[in-house]
């Protein structure tokens, strides 16, 4: 599964159950984010033992975007058996604070800031 535009790309690797985000996500509102929500939903429905979100190359994410990610975390948390890993980058300013907040939604979430 993959979504690709000239601004951003989202790619799911089933072998590692990793969703990678690249580029700059600045869609306006929940409606525009629906295709991404659907992609994430499909990943969660498979209920792999561990889901990894890699945002190390996501340079920009707007508020609707962080909202979407937060909701996804909540959804995964409800599936007690699924482990969650988020990989971020120290280099990108917004990631430090906002990714830590994801941990508040799911204390078991494993945050790797490189």
């Amino acid at each position, binding site marked *: 599964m993959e979504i690709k535009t000239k601004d951003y790309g989202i790619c799911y690797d089933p072998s590692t159950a990793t969703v990678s985000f690249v580029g700059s996500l600045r869609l306006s509102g929940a409606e525009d984010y629906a295709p991404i929500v659907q992609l994430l939903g499909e990943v969660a429905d498979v209920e792999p033992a561990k889901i990894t979100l890699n945002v190390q190359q996501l340079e*920009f*994410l*707007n*508020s609707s975007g*962080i*909202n979407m990610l*937060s*909701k996804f975390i*909540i959804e995964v948390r409800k599936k007690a058996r699924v482990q969650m890993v988020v990989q971020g980058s120290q280099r990108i*300013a*917004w990631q430090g*604070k*906002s990714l830590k*907040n*994801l941990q*508040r*939604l799911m204390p078991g979430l494993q945050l790797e800031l490189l």
Partner: protein
Amino acid sequence: MITFRVRTVEQFSVSRGAHSRVMLEEQPSREQLLLEIERLRQQVEDLKEEKADLEILLETTAEHSDSLASELQNRALEAVREGEIKLAQFLEAIPIGVAVLDSLGKPCYVNRAGKQLLGQGIVPLNAVDDLSESYQIYIAGTDTIYPFENLPIVRALRGESTTTDDMEVHQPDKKVPIEGWGTPIFDEAGKVAFAIAVFQDVTERKQAEAERHKFINELFKLKENLEKSLDAESDLTDAYGRFVPHQFLNLLGYESILDVNLGDQVQEEMSVLFADIRDFTTLSETMTPQENFNFINAYLSRMEPAIASHNGFIDKYIGDAIMALFSDCADDALKAGIAMLNILTDYNEHRQNIGYIPIQIGIGINSGSLMLGTVGGASRMDSTVISDAVNLASRIEGLTKEYGVPLLISQQTLERLRNPADYAIRIVDKVQVKGKSQYVTVYEVFDADPPEILSAKLANLALYTEAMLLCDRKEFRSAGKLFEECLRTNPSDPVARIYLKRCRDWRSLLKGI
């Protein structure tokens, strides 16, 4: 645990039967109530969790927004700062002076070049009135302080954009002539926010201008002298041109007669045209010497343009005769000849109108190789043409009188025409070149004949040509018959008449033998 309890209740109800179900509906049992409470508690827990989630979500979103906003602002500031630094670097690097006054007239920026030109940077001023004094700006070439109100930068404070080059900055060791531009910068409300002056050292330019002025004056004098010389030379050349044609000089490779050396010569392929007034001597006898010259000049001045307009030039006048030369193209010579005859027709009409008798001319044209050169001794020199072709042209011209036609050309000329079919041409005779055994055929060109004669000659052309051929074969009897036929339709054909007579003469001569 919850699941287990619900299942128990169901089992319980089913085992109790319909009665107890009625009881349950009417009054919930304690167990049911406990169950309900448990369910509600669970709901509350869920809601609490959801509320907590939402709060975190809200905080996350808000914090995310904040961090984005502050990051964007940082980036924007950074970009602005970078821009400012760059701009300042640019201004410093410009090799012309830049100075800025704020809206109150206080200096707030002077770039590096500006500091060099002014000898100082930002100076604290009491009032803009002191600007000229503080920076030692004078009216160029004087010791008068520049009126501050006229400084471009001060005028820019009043909203004007101006330029001036009569400023001079007096530094301790030198005086620097300055050219400056003043420009106001307006704020959004349209008020002057800053006044900018840009200025540069014009020492070199002022020097160059002075030198240029001096140089122009010198050049002007030179040019005046040169013009006088050129006028003199041109007058001289024009005068000579009337005696020795420019074209003749050009053929020798010279611009001016002054360059010509005795013995210069050149060989050229050309056409020679001879034109002569028929019976001029008889005509001449009836006129006074003055009338003679008036007549010749009236005639020649009419003929000259026909030659010049066909790229020819008159090599010389020999009494009433014209000798003209045409480079390369025989068509030019022939067209000039036809044009001369047409001009003559008009001229004769004019002469008849004022009671003079019409004149007739003969034109002969030949083509070939010509030697052009200068001849003479140390004190008398002339241009001349040496060639058999000239002699033949003159002889052919002489034949026009004999055959009573105005225009004859040689075989050599005919062969050099681009398209002989463009002209009305017929064979007339064969002449032997003087001192040589070869014969040259001579042709009549009758394009300039009156229309009725022209069409009659054309109508008879085949007959005439056949007759000439028979004549050539000495079949005089048949030839004569054909000439007779020609004369029946065109009795005024002089050539046919001459040949008819010759045929008869030959026949009687042959009979006699």
